[in-house]
């Protein structure tokens, strides 16, 4: 099943390579990986989804921890969590089709972010199913271009791992321009 890992890493050059290299070397197949900043400048956050079984999910977690730059790993697959994907879809929409496409977009609570004579670009945020659903109904009009970010996810409720000192030592990473952990 699709497992969702939230991984906190030191915000240093080369850390993404280390994570990607680990998945390649151990033959764990990444479904999606997103990385971005967090509320702390010295910490980056990855959401990694992997189609795997519970045993292998544990091994993935343990192997991630073996990377020196990984601060915290959470498998939130079975936690109450919000998972969101963002897509931009450029649809061929000539004069007659335009109103139909607009209607579909509004049914899916998607927004039109660009209008051109021959096309419309729609932005949609949501769970993967919702985006798949919209794509399905737009396809007959002709999808010219599409991009998806991959899942970002967060637990529900007020708990945050950085608020729980038992789970992670608060990272104290010095600004570190002289050292790159890989090129």
């Amino acid at each position: 099943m699709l497992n969702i890992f939230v991984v906190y890493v030191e915000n240093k050059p080369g850390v993404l390579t280390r994570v990607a290299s680990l998945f390649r070397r151990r033959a764990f197949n990444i479904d999606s990986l997103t990385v971005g900043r967090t509320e702390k400048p010295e910490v980056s956050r990855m959401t990694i989804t992997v189609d795997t079984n519970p045993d292998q999910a544990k091994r993935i977690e343990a192997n991630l921890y073996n990377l020196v730059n990984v601060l915290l790993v959470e498998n939130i697959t079975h936690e109450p969590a919000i998972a969101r994907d963002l897509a931009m879809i450029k649809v061929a929409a000539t004069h007659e089709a335009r109103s139909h496409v607009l209607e579909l977009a509004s049914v899916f609570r998607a927004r039109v972010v660009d209008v051109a004579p021959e096309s419309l670009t729609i932005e949609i945020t949501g769970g993967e199913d919702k985006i798949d659903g919209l794509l399905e109904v737009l396809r007959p009009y002709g999808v010219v271009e599409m991009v998806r970010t991959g899942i970002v996810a967060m637990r529900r409720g007020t708990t945050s791992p950085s608020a729980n000192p038992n789970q992670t030592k608060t990272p104290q990473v010095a600004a570190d321009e002289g050292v790159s952990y890989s090129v």
Partner: protein
Amino acid sequence: MTKTGAQILWECLEREGVKHVFGYPGGAILPAYDALKHSDIHHILVRHEQGATHMADGYARASGEVGVAVATSGPGATNMVTGIATAMLDSSPIVCITGQVGSKLIGSDAFQETDITGITLPITKHNYLVTHADQLARVLREAFYVARSGRPGPVLVDITKDAQQSSCEFNWEAARPQLPGYRPDLSPEETEYAQALELIHKAKRPLILAGHGIIVSGAMAEVLTLAEKAGIPVALTLLGLGAFPASHPLNLGMMGMHGEAWVNHAIQEADLLLALGMRFDDRVTGNLKTYAQDAKKIHIEIDPAEINKNVKVDVALVGDLREVLKELLPRVESVDHTEWLDSIDKLKGDSAVRDVQKLPDNGHLYAAHVINDLWRETRGSNTVVVTDVGQHQMWEAQYFKHEKARSLITSGGLGTMGFALPAAIGAKVARPEAEVWVIVGDGGFQMTMSELATIVQEKLKINIAIINNGFLGMVRQWQEFFYERNYEATPLLNPNFVKLAEAYGIRSMAVTERSQVLPSVRAARDHDGAVLLDFKVEQEDTVYPMVAAGASLNDMIRRPSPIVETAADE
């Protein structure tokens, strides 16, 4: 105090307790070499950077201290790759220092630029590229800490030429490691101890699987106490040999592909396996589907990523073995396993080792005899044997009885031919008082024999026994069993090893008969310089037993005409 990066390098190494480094200079590391004159560290000039890494590795395995290898950028650094991978697979703590082109030139394909941190990323525990002198002290402290703590492993520090040349304020105390994500110190939960104890006390046919982690952890005494207290017999992995005394009545010997038959049968019949610091390598388990199906399994292991990797276990105690056993031991009750021990004793009649030892002297020289005689002759002395990879490595494991930890050094996980000679140099440098013997094949010897010059230049007393069978023997054995004796690319046309050694100024003799073995070993031990013995052994000899790749552990290829006797003899 203001210092150059190069000076900081050596000072940090000294503060980490480094007395020797193994290295080879070149342009990008020259500033560091220039600063060596201010340091008390002894630099050993190798003949190939691969040798430097194996020496650092041998140094680490012989002493438990971090070994250090130094090389220049580009080809110097890439020559280290095999040695780094070897150390990685066998969890050996080494730090490799490489020079790198100037930081402004990185990415420009400058002369002798390679992305060595990128290349070694999957074969190091961690690595660093340092481009500023003021980062060097902290990075080096982290490198040594990461290399030696938790599950040990190789760390590479790549230092640009300008970082070596430029100066900065040096303050060792302030340059503390900053590793917020690194957790080498895990320990089990109370409930896990309780579950383990319950399984131990219920077991009727328990077996300890003793691995390299015992030696890394220094838990030899605790394992001995556990085995004796609970009356549990002990089987060892190749890298575990020496962790439990070979002469102890509870010691069964080596398990796995070339382990003794009785050991593998006992594993398949056991109802509890207590895996201590071993990682269920495929050479140990054979076919996983049929492996020890009746046994509950307890795994005591420092690396959580090893749990359930190959073999699914019932209880895992994740932590340093010695610490975990200290917690466990007072609660272990003594249990009587006489029946189980007797049944293993009956299996012992069936022994490959005995088969060869009892062979009458028919004029042929067998590797087994050479190695067994060497063991008898050196028994009781402070001996370190360093083996290479191949048939001779397996015969050594079978016929040389190791009583103490760190008395055998061998490349297990990567199986790196060419390891033995340089690793023995490292071992001798780490433990000058020890008697160091290299047991090496005629193939593997020729991979790194250039290090003979290092032995001579450093005036090291190392004894080298070439098991010269004129073949890449272990590969020939596979061809014999699995490729219809098509000996493609395995016969070797060798140089005259005696003359070769003499060209280096090393005393040498060839041995062709069994009666000459002991006298030659004695002569080697009496000589105060390095000695090379060329043992011309039976060419087409076979290591028995053998579990073919993918076969079940108890499905062994056996010697065609075994001598079956009782378990009573030696």
